[in-house]
């Protein structure tokens, strides 16, 4: 699983060297951002069902999508938010890449999924994050950048 620390260790191991000062500096950099990430992950975990249902009500509220798909879409958004929670914890995009984005295109094409609805829902969540009511500015930045990462992958 790719994270800030494992990336550094992999490259050190590939050249057979001990962690150098610059390796340690880069690990330290990720530790410095960690408290904002963990705050964001905690808020997301506590509100994951609310974020999902609010965004789904918004997207399916104007009748532009087949209502029969709402439950499935809700399940998928919940799944993606869980992966974002994991990314916030690891400090890298590893969980989204390995469990969410790898193979996503093929599945979407085979199932003819309405990716536009997903994008709308994720954009809604991104724009509705309440700073500082729900999370701090820094935590929101971490959360939003991962939402953007996923939106770009879906688009």
């Amino acid at each position, binding site marked *: *699983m790719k*994270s800030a*620390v*494992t990336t*550094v*260790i*992999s490259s*050190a*191991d590939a050249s*057979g*060297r*001990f*962690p*150098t000062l610059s390796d*340690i500096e880069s*690990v*330290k950099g990720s*530790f410095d951002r*960690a*408290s904002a990430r*963990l705050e964001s*992950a*905690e808020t*997301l*975990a*506590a509100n*994951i069902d609310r974020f999902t249902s609010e965004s789904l009500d918004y997207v399916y509220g104007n009748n532009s999508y087949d209502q029969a798909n709402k439950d499935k879409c809700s399940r998928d958004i919940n799944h993606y*938010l*869980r992966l974002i*929670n*994991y990314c916030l*914890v*690891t*400090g890298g995009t*590893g*969980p989204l890449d390995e*469990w969410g984005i790898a193979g996503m295109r093929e599945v979407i094409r085979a199932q003819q999924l309405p990716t536009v609805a997903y994008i709308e829902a994720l954009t809604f969540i991104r724009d509705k994050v309440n700073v500082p009511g729900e999370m701090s500015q820094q935590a929101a930045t971490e959360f939003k950048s991962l939402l953007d990462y996923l939106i770009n992958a879906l688009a």
Partner: protein
Amino acid sequence: MLDAFSRAVVTADSKGAPLGRADLVSLRKYVADANKRIDATLAITQNVSCIAADAVSGMVCENTGLTQPGGHCYPTRRMAACLRDGEIILRYVSYALLAGDPSVLDDRCINGLKETYLALGVPLANAVRAIEIMKIATVAIMTETNTGRKMFEGINSGSGADCKDIASEAASYFDRVIDALS
């Protein structure tokens, strides 16, 4: 390869749940102790040759036959291989310590080590003894209970006494190697 964070993620994924407040407690401690962890890693990387050389010398002193003709550390080529292996084990322990998770040590060092040593005719009891001495030396340097230069004066964590928990984590990684060879 996993670190403390991705280990938590893999565990949570098997349950299909996000990581909430309760799951994040131990990770917050990991972040809070980051400076100690970094110092402890430096304690290994700055003393590698000293730790490995002392351990191999200690092992030979306890079994002087090793460096005699017919012994396992004779000629120097084999002694050098022994020193090299000591450094390799230290390197993987330093990775595991930095990551806060033993998976890199398990996957890339321990897996198949015993079989390799058996096939090459390396005496396991002596290897285990050398690793034990490395463990004792590493813990002593981290907790500043060693004789000679003290590590932490003026750098991050302040004193070796604060690094007790991290030092016992490091000791547990050495124990993993010892258990695998025993």
